[in-house]
């Protein structure tokens, strides 16, 4: 599509200034040759002067056999900006850990240059490769080229959203399980649930290799799988002394900041009471050469986090305090729990009710009963303070009372 007109963009031009890389320069680079990006430039300038967006609400578009992966988008000013009368987004499932080769990136660019705006997000908030803006009739051809190149669409709507993870064992000494392998496994295990929305609302998985939680799983995923360990922190005492010698104030920076108050330092030896360690990562973060997570590694599983819509934001809460995550993943009992949770949520959940909200509505105790988990103290910050307990049974006169 040739570019046949040029828009004045005095406001956007202001955003070409400054040292941080400019998104306006990116749009202009695409607008040099792509009429969709050129019209986007004109529309965005208008939005900047009016302080308002000009995109219509949704619209159901997709590729054959899939219910998710494409976000329909149309401008409300199609006469003025005809080249973006359609401007649909494709979500493309990224490889675990967002690793690429230059060859793979060029393949993606070639496909997108032939069929879309030439604009992308690397990456969207959930982690997908985002192809930003194309017409309905281009969707099937893009999809066919993507699958021929080994890529597939990600999730959208009320389905499993594209699972994402930190770089884990590929480049991190703190990875307590293989996040990239598990993420790849989960993504493939749930292809149907990912591509064909059938849930009450969205369902996100995020895999972090350690409690630093670099993919924000505790805040941004319905199923948060966070690596941890249950034995002793590994200590190289000689290296601890080197940190102390090189200026780390062990008392102030480590001992006093330990949330478990379980570290002592006598100027020579670091003593950790591992039974009180909260596995927060702070001491390890500060002295990565001297300390490391223990050897008995696995993950804690938390459930239910979400942003505010509808009933308020939630953080995930503990369901499984520790589980080993080892190949073959298919044999893990964990999938039975996922199946139970989904069965219950699909049966009882309301339209647009995330699983975290569902748990709040029916009560954690009832939820545990239904999915077959025993209540344990690790699941709560503290026991209830409110004495209105829903006991389900009581004794009648004359019944034999249990002793």
């Amino acid at each position, binding site marked *: 599509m040739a570019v046949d007109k040029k828009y004045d963009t005095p406001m956007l031009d202001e955003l070409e200034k*400054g040292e941080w890389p400019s998104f306006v320069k990116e749009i202009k680079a*695409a607008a040099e040759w792509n009429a969709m990006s050129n019209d986007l430039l004109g529309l965005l300038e208008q939005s900047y002067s009016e302080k308002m967006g000009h995109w219509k*609400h949704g619209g159901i578009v997709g590729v054959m056999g899939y219910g998710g992966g494409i976000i329909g988008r149309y401008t409300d000013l199609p006469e003025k900006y005809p080249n973006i009368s359609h401007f649909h987004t494709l979500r493309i499932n990224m490889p675990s850990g967002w690793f*690429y080769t*230059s060859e793979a990136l060029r393949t993606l660019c070639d496909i997108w240059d032939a069929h879309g705006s030439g604009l992308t997000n690397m990456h969207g*908030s959930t982690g997908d490769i985002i192809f930003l803006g194309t017409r309905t009739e281009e969707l099937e051809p893009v999809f066919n080229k993507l699958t021929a190149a080994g890529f*597939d669409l990600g999730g959208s709507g009320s389905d499993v959203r594209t699972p994402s993870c930190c770089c884990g064992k590929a480049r991190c000494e703190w990875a307590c399980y293989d996040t990239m392998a598990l993420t790849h496994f989960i993504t493939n295990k749930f292809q149907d649930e990912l591509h064909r929305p059938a849930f009450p609302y969205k369902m996100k998985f995020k895999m972090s290799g350690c409690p*630093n939680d670099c993919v924000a*799983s505790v805040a941004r995923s319905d199923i948060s799988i966070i690596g941890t360990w249950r034995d002793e922190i590994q200590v190289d005492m000689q290296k601890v002394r080197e940190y102390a010698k090189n200026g780390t104030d062990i008392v102030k920076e480590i001992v006093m*900041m330990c949330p478990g108050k379980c570290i002592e330092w006598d100027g020579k030896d670091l003593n950790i009471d591992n039974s009180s360690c909260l596995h927060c990562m702070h001491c390890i973060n500060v002295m990565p050469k001297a300390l490391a997570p223990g050897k008995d590694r696995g993950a804690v599983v938390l459930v239910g986090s979400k942003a505010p819509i509808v009933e308020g934001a939630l953080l995930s809460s503990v369901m499984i305090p520790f589980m080993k995550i080892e190949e073959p993943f298919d044999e893990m009992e964990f999938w039975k729990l996922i199946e139970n949770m989904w069965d219950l949520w699909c049966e009882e959940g309301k339209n647009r009710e995330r699983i975290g909200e569902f748990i709040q509505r029916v009560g954690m105790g009832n939820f545990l009963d239904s999915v077959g988990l025993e209540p344990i103290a690790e699941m709560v910050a503290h026991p209830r303070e409110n004495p209105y307990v829903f006991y389900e049974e009581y004794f009648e006169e004359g019944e034999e009372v249990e002793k």
Partner: protein
Amino acid sequence: MAEEVLQRKTDIGPPHYSKFLPPIIKENYGKWKYHEIPRPGVLMHVADNGAKLYSVRAGSPRLLSTFKIRKYAELADKYCDGYLRFTSRHNVEFLLTKEENINPLIADLNALGHPVGGTGNSITSIVHTQGWIHCHSAATDASGIVKAVMDDNIEYFKTMVLPGKLRIALACCLNMCGAVHCSDIAILGIHRRPPKINKVNLPKMCEIPNVVASCPTAAIRPVVYDGKPSVEILEDKCMFCANCFTVCPALPLADPLNDGVSIWIGGKVSNARHEPMFSKLAIPFIPNNPPRWPEVTGAIRKIVELWAKNAHKHERMGEWIERIGWPKFFRMSGIEFQKEHIDDFKYAGLTYKRSAHLTY
């Protein structure tokens, strides 16, 4: 056509990551020993066998043209055998095995307009949403504010002089595609005017029971208008969540006079030291002022500097404020405490101060 359909591939999932890992990572997968940050923007991971992997991290606007991605690919070919990755905060990372390639790569990245940094105690790239570039429900733009804020704090991206990490995120409406609610600083677009009911389109586009059920405060009621089913909105019960708009396009909230930005601070997702926590409201409303939102960048700069000056080493924004107390934060920052700062939704009571632990 029929033949094409037969050959159509579906449900193949993403390409296996192992195709994209450089040999040094394949050899040392799960065998990394420790890492150092030899200079801002450069990570050095050392494996058990002594192998060293250098990651050079550069800032990115997230919105990338294919032109720029091809440039990244060229640099990856030139310096690291074609291997690169992206981070969870939209930075690009080049994966080098030759230490001598670090400086030339950084020079090329800078020439391309991409500063190197975002490691350790820095402000790294802002996780953000689409805004006016692509979203129907945006109350503000995303990329423009992000650009202005990062320009204004560029030295904190390129250095590691802050007390701890500072994570900024932006969502252009309460839907929070960027899930900003656990950030050191969250910039959140908000609407402040109830939906305008499009009475002509509503019966055609929306299912009334769904619309009524979508409202978390039960502010929407079914009515008959001009003989057709419609809704009315009890405006004093509307908290501008836009959930009704999500299920019904005939209830738009966007309004240039009343839309703008709120600032939330003190959240985190990491378990380090303090448990993860939500961001709390610092500034209820700042009007949209494109193209560079100077009131937003000014407010953020002030909060960043206040924290940088007063926090203990390693203390995140929320940990610092928790230590000194919110009243002291408001006194120190000069931000006026208003009615809007006090929660009035589901768990509001839990946020009241319920002790005599106060500073004077």
